[in-house]
């Protein structure tokens, strides 16, 4: 019996020692850029299920969600196995009154705002402690030069994390992925439409190349 326990312990130790650690890839960006839509698309394309709910109300995602063991294969046959972490939109201010404009009752708006603040704090903590690579999600119809984007890219660079910038919503008439390329020339920018699925394959190719 003692021999059995010892063998089991050694076996667990060896498994722990040699088990391949999966990279955790965080999807970051400002609110309403399409982070959860992308996380859902990746999960559906490679696992067959979804991560979380989406809506036009900012801060719909108020907790970081991790989808584990996603194996993505590139056109050259190389593949990566990663965990995708969908994070709440990063901002420096949250006022519950903004939710009232969407017809949400005051009490629920206050609860949403509190959860959103916790979610942003959580997302920052994940970035400092646990994230191994980042897909930084931007809305191609919006100004990329806002301080939150500059600050977040600075934080990601200071941690030496590999980053791909996804310029989302290229299906919309005002989209300008070129403006995003101009704002962050030091990083690969992939123009995509998460809703239409446009150019998603190129994003997967870049993920296989950049993330380990």
């Amino acid at each position, binding site marked *: 019996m003692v021999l059995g326990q010892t063998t089991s312990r050694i076996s667990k130790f060896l498994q722990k020692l040699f088990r391949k650690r999966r990279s955790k890839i965080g999807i970051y960006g400002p609110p309403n850029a399409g982070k959860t839509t992308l996380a859902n698309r990746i999960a559906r394309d490679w696992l067959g299920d979804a991560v979380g709910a989406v809506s036009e109300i900012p801060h719909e995602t108020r907790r970081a969600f991790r989808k584990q063991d996603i194996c993505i294969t590139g056109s050259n046959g190389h593949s990566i196995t990663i965990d995708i972490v969908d994070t709440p939109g990063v901002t420096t*201010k*949250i*006022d519950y009154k903004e939710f009232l404009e969407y017809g949400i009752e005051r009490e629920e708006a206050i609860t949403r705002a*509190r959860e959103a603040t916790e979610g942003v704090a959580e997302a920052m903590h994940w970035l400092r402690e646990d994230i191994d690579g980042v897909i930084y999600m931007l809305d191609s119809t919006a100004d990329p030069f806002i*301080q939150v984007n500059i*600050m977040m890219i600075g934080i990601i*660079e200071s941690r030496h994390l590999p980053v791909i910038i996804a310029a989302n919503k290229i299906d919309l008439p005002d989209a300008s992925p070129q403006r995003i390329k101009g704002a962050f020339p030091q990083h690969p920018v992939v123009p995509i439409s998460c809703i239409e699925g446009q150019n998603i394959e190129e994003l997967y190719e870049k993920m296989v190349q950049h993330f380990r």
Partner: protein
Amino acid sequence: MMQGIQIDLISEERLADLTSMERIRLILDRVREGTIVILERGLAPEEQSRLVEMTMQEILPDGFNGIEIESYPAKAEETHLIARLLGRKPPTRLTVIGPANHIRMIRKDKDLISAWISTG
């Protein structure tokens, strides 16, 4: 009595003597009281990350609702060789931080930040 908004201009030397947490606390305490803080030299990326996290933890309904922050990016030539070898990014330059309900950034160029301040 004269009414208005207090603006504190904090020198690089004043911040240099403080730890990261003391810097963030100093900024956040002032901004929560309604003061606009202008730093001669900005915060490191790690400090910015913690500032956002702590700001979120202090937001209250009908009270403090967060910060506006704007800064000029660091000049590439300010990155010293040793810092580069260690992979450190230099801190940002002049930085404006204020309570989100009193200050709104209206324009930012590479050499101009324009803000609108409300006393109401």
